[in-house]
């Protein structure tokens, strides 16, 4: 990889790929500058709030459920493990709209579980809770899969040696494992948050598109496209900027807690 041909090829690859991913964003900025600049309204703020609130909760759920499960899957061998790993891959393989439909079939008023809930007077679809469920459905598997990689990276012998010092397993987990897996877990958090933040297809079908309630930013962009293309693109650009800002903040937080 360090031979001169190899390293030149490598640079070509990198430039190609980076170009492929940056040119579209530059194009977006160029287009907006040319067509009269940024133009957003109340809808943007409203849906941004819905997005930040829902993805915040989703990420908390992902961390709470995802970290123990990822750790468990990383450290234990048991029968049924492959099946679990398959099941966790399915939501990643489903087109989001299909995810939305099957969530509706399961938790909708007519759904297998939904009917039961309905008996207790609970109706999930088209509520804020549905937004969170749709986001968890698509992002939790991502968190678990990447989180598991992060835990796999931590040498078990280091954990075992820490036990010798008299630290309880919980303490070892919190003080040794988590810090060593931190960068990986951070990546899992960021990527699953991004997946939730960008989620569109499952949300619009399972949670609907009610302004201020279930209309997340991607849905608002979709709605804006119906009327004002420029507004939609402006929202898209600001959405990307917000997302990148959140990214940077998360990485800085992670960096701090690392030291």
């Amino acid at each position, binding site marked *: 990889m360090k031979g001169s041909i190899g390293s030149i090829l490598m640079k070509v690859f990198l430039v190609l790929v980076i170009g492929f991913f940056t040119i579209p964003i530059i194009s977006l900025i160029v287009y907006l500058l040319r067509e009269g600049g940024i133009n957003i309204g109340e809808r943007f703020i409203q849906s941004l709030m819905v997005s930040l609130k829902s993805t915040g909760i989703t990420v908390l759920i992902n961390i709470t459920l995802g970290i123990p499960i990822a750790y468990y899957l990383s450290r234990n061998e048991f029968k049924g493990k492959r099946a679990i790993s398959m099941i966790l891959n399915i939501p990643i393989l489903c087109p989001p709209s299909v995810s939305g439909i099957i969530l509706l079939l399961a938790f909708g008023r007519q759904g297998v579980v939904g009917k039961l809930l309905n008996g207790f007077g609970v109706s999930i679809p088209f509520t804020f809770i549905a937004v969170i469920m749709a986001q968890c459905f698509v992002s939790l598997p991502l968190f678990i899969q990447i989180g598991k990689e992060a835990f796999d990276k931590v040498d078990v012998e280091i954990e075992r040696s820490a036990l010798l010092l008299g630290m309880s397993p919980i303490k070892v987990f919190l*003080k040794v494992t988590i810090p060593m897996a931190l960068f990986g877990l951070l990546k899992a958090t960021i990527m699953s948050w991004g997946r939730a933040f960008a989620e569109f297809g499952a949300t619009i079908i399972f949670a609907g598109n009610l302004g201020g309630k279930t209309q997340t930013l991607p849905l608002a962009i979709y709605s804006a496209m119906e009327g004002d293309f420029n507004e939609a693109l402006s929202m898209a650009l600001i959405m990307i900027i917000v997302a990148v800002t959140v990214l940077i903040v998360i990485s800085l937080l992670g960096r701090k807690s690392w030291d």
Partner: protein
Amino acid sequence: MLNVKFEQEYENINLNINVKIDSMRCALVGPSGAGKTSIFDVISGLKIPPRGKVILGKDILFSSQEKVNIPVHKRRVGYVRQNSYLIPHISVEDNIRMGLNIDSKDFEDILTRLKIKDILKKRPGELSGGELRRVDIARMLVIKPRLFLIDEGLSSLDENLRACVFKCILDKCSKWNTGMMIITHNPLYIKGHVDSVIKIEQGKIIQG
């Protein structure tokens, strides 16, 4: 004082250990692959053999029959393993303080005698082999164990340092009334310091 009994089969060797140790300071010797490390692993709880029993003082640490298995972190066995497994992202000092269980006088004394004061701020990845080993010994010593195991812990140290470190270990162990066992291939320097020598060969105790 210590009673270890267990069986375990591997492709190339069957371990069949049954040993009773009454001395406070004991050496474990034998050829490579005889099963020395395995005994320490079983005592410390890192290895759970299919059949076996470990009794330390009056406490049953492990018994496959009675389904007892005191977890590793409750055994208070200080165990310097053949390799070091320090926590890489924190400093040497933080590594040592992790299980700290003694007063600061003893702590300072250990740091001084093990000559690790200069490297306290470094990360484990920046240490030489012998430095790593001394840090490992220090962090296992400061938990004030009720039993202290060293697996070839001193062979990567030069003669002067080895004597100094060994003396420090012996002092602390007698002060705390801690039993000590050492695996070594170098019987010279332990002579006179241990009460008994256990010899093991091909997975079996042949003398001890």
